[in-house]
C-alpha cells in the first residue's frame, strides 16, 4: 500500500527506481512491484493523469499473460464507463 501512495505522489518517477515497469506490448499498462506482489495499473493520460489500479496478484511464475489480459479487459471497461 505504501507503493500505491508513492505511485499517487510520484507517478512515473517510480519507473526510474524500477518499482514500476511498463507491461510489454501493452500501451499505458504498468506493473507496480513490491516483493512478490504485483498490481497492474492503467495510466490514464486524459485530464488529471490518473493511475487506475486494475488487478493485483502474487507473482508465481514467469507467465502472467492471463493477469495482463484480465487487466486489459478491466481497463477497457473503465474506459467505456467514462
Amino acid at each position, binding site marked *: 500500500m505504501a507503493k500505491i501512495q508513492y505511485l499517487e505522489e510520484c507517478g512515473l518517477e517510480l519507473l526510474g527506481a524500477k*518499482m514500476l515497469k511498463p507491461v510489454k506490448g501493452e500501451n499505458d499498462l504498468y506493473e507496480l512491484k513490491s516483493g512478490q506482489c504485483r498490481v497492474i495499473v492503467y495510466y490514464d493520460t486524459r485530464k488529471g493523469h490518473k493511475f487506475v489500479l486494475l488487478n493485483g496478484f502474487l507473482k508465481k511464475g514467469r507467465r502472467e499473460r492471463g493477469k495482463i489480459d484480465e487487466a486489459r479487459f478491466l481497463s477497457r471497461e473503465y474506459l467505456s464507463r467514462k
Partner: protein
Amino acid sequence: MNRTFKEDLERELQDVEFAREFGAAVAKTDFALTLAKARRICQVTQTDLANLLGTSQSYIAKLERGDANPTIGRIGELLAVLGLRLSTNTIPLISSVYSETEIHRAENSGFHVSTLLFPLKDISDLEIAVHSEKETSDTKDTKLVEASSR
C-alpha cells in the same frame, strides 16, 4: 460510493499491525527513491556502487526497489560513498511527499538527501541541495573522485 485511496488508508491505519507494516514499507520506499535519484545524479552505476561497498549489484537494485531493509549504518556507508550523508526528519505518516513548503525550506537550508522528509522532486532540486552543501564543506566532485579512486 467513491472511496478515495487516502480514506481507505486512514481507516486501515487504525490497525496498529497495519500501521507498523505500512511505516516500514514507506521508509524503505522513501529511501529507495532517494538513493536511486542520488546515484543517478552522481553518475555512479549500481555495479560501481556495489564494488565500492563490497556488495553485489543485485543488492543495490533491491535497495532501489525498496525491497531491502538496510541498517542505518549501511545507509550512511552508501551515502558517504556518493559524497552525501543521511539527514533524517519526521513528518505526519499521511502527508504528501511533495510538500511545497518542505521543498522550499530544504532548498534554503543546505541539506543533503533527506529520506523521511521527501524524495527530491527532480534533478534540479538535488543540484540545489548539493550546491548549498558545497558552500559549507568539500565539493561534491572532490568527494566523488575520492570515492571512485578507493
